[in-house]
């Protein structure tokens, strides 16, 4: 009896140790391979400016409520209040201490495509690397070159304030195993027009539209079965609209309507853009009309879904 107990205790210990070791391995932060890093290229700041706007960097990393030129002061500080706790966008200006001035292009690529910091820690997916993982490395190289042209700003943003167990970074490793990949969300046939493919890249990659316009599952990951179906707003009340052609969506918007909305902020019935989309639209207005037409062409192609958020409660009486 005693021997049995001893043996089972030993077995349990082995299981625990193996589990912990396995868990440790499974949750380990992984960086990009040399082959991908080789594609970063020398970086072109002019091309990088387009990526900067497409990727919406300033929407979260500029000082909250900044307008115009001040949007290039990437001091951070915007709070994202979610069910997991409050995320605070960090300083990504060129300041070597408070920002990312000391980062290499490889560091930026690992952060954006693998969610790993230069020191090898997991970053939280509130930073939309699950979308940026679909980007071409050369676009990251160009973005890096553009970021180098923006002046440094002093000031460290506050730390995240997250609930247990979400405050344990290591756990993000498991999340990444389930939800991080570079393959496109919407599979398109081989004869798909160039314009639609370009739109898919902008929407699913740098534009990270799905991060707000798609409902999330219990783990906070985008539910690809309801891609772009609209969702309850991550913070506070309200919704983010359905941008598929499903019921409640934008089936009655022509491709030209979508492109014009992204350029001007006016919907087909001449209501205006609002909420968090106001900043996104301002970024989209900085792109070329070809880019906006590509986004529109892709949105007209995505599978239709009914609204990904509950219907509005009608007031009684």
């Amino acid at each position, binding site marked *: 009896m005693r021997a049995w107990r001893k043996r089972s205790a030993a077995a349990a210990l082995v299981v625990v140790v193996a589990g912990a070791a396995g868990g440790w391995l499974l949750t380990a932060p992984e960086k990009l391979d040399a082959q991908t890093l080789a594609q970063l290229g020398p970086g072109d700041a002019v091309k990088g400016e387009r990526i900067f706007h497409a990727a919406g960097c300033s929407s979260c990393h500029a000082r909250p409520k900044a307008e115009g030129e001040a949007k290039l002061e990437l001091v951070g500080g915007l709070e994202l209040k979610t069910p997991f706790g409050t995320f605070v966008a960090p300083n990504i200006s060129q300041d070597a201490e408070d920002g990312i001035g000391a980062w290499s292009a490889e560091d930026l690529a690992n952060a954006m495509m693998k969610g790993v910091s230069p020191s090898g820690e997991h970053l939280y997916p509130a930073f939309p690397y699950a979308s940026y993982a679909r980007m071409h490395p050369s676009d990251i190289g160009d973005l890096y070159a553009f970021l180098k042209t923006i002046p440094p700003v002093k000031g460290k943003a506050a730390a995240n304030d997250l609930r247990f167990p979400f405050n344990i970074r290591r756990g993000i490793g498991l999340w990444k195993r389930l939800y991080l990949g570079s393959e496109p969300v919407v599979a398109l046939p081989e004869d798909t027009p160039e314009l639609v493919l370009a739109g898919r890249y902008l929407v699913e990659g740098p534009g990270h539209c799905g991060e707000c316009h798609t409902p999330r599952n219990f783990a906070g990951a985008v539910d690809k079965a309801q891609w772009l179906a609209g969702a309850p707003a991550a913070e506070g009340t309200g919704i983010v609209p359905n941008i598929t052609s499903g019921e409640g969506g934008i089936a009655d918007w022509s491709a*030209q309507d979508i492109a014009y909305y992204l350029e001007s902020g006016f919907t087909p019935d001449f*209501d205006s853009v*609002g*909420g968090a989309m106001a900043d996104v639209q301002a970024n989209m207005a900085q792109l070329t009309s070809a880019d906006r037409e590509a986004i529109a062409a892709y949105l007209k192609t995505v599978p239709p879904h009914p609204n990904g958020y*509950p219907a*509005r409660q009608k*007031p009684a009486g």
Partner: protein
Amino acid sequence: MRRFLVAVSILAFAASAASADAISDRQALMKERGKIVGTLAKMTKGELPFEAAEVKNALQALQANAERFDADALFPAGTETGGETTVSPKVWEDMTGFKAAEDKYLANVKAANAAPADDLDTLKTQLGTVGGDCAACHKAFRIKKG
């Protein structure tokens, strides 16, 4: 006592009717505004040809609409919810900022109306400025509802 109760319920009814009125009044004002903007936007969108006379009329109408905007009357306390309102509570948390946003819009509409665009590019610029004011206010003070 009964008379008091009747009086109270009449007052309560009147107050809720007034709230409902304020919500539908401000929605009507915004709908009208969108419609006028539509005349101009259709030209910049390429759906209508540029017509200087139409632009002039629309800008006049837009100014008249903007001048009818009275934040105190349209957004009284008690109209934070109800009806189909999509207003954000920030309107009442920051009434000064809300009024300033509307004033900025009015000023830009007046400036456009003082020198109505006589070519498409100028109209694009004017509408861009005014549209930026629409977006700025809706960014802070409106919540998209399902």
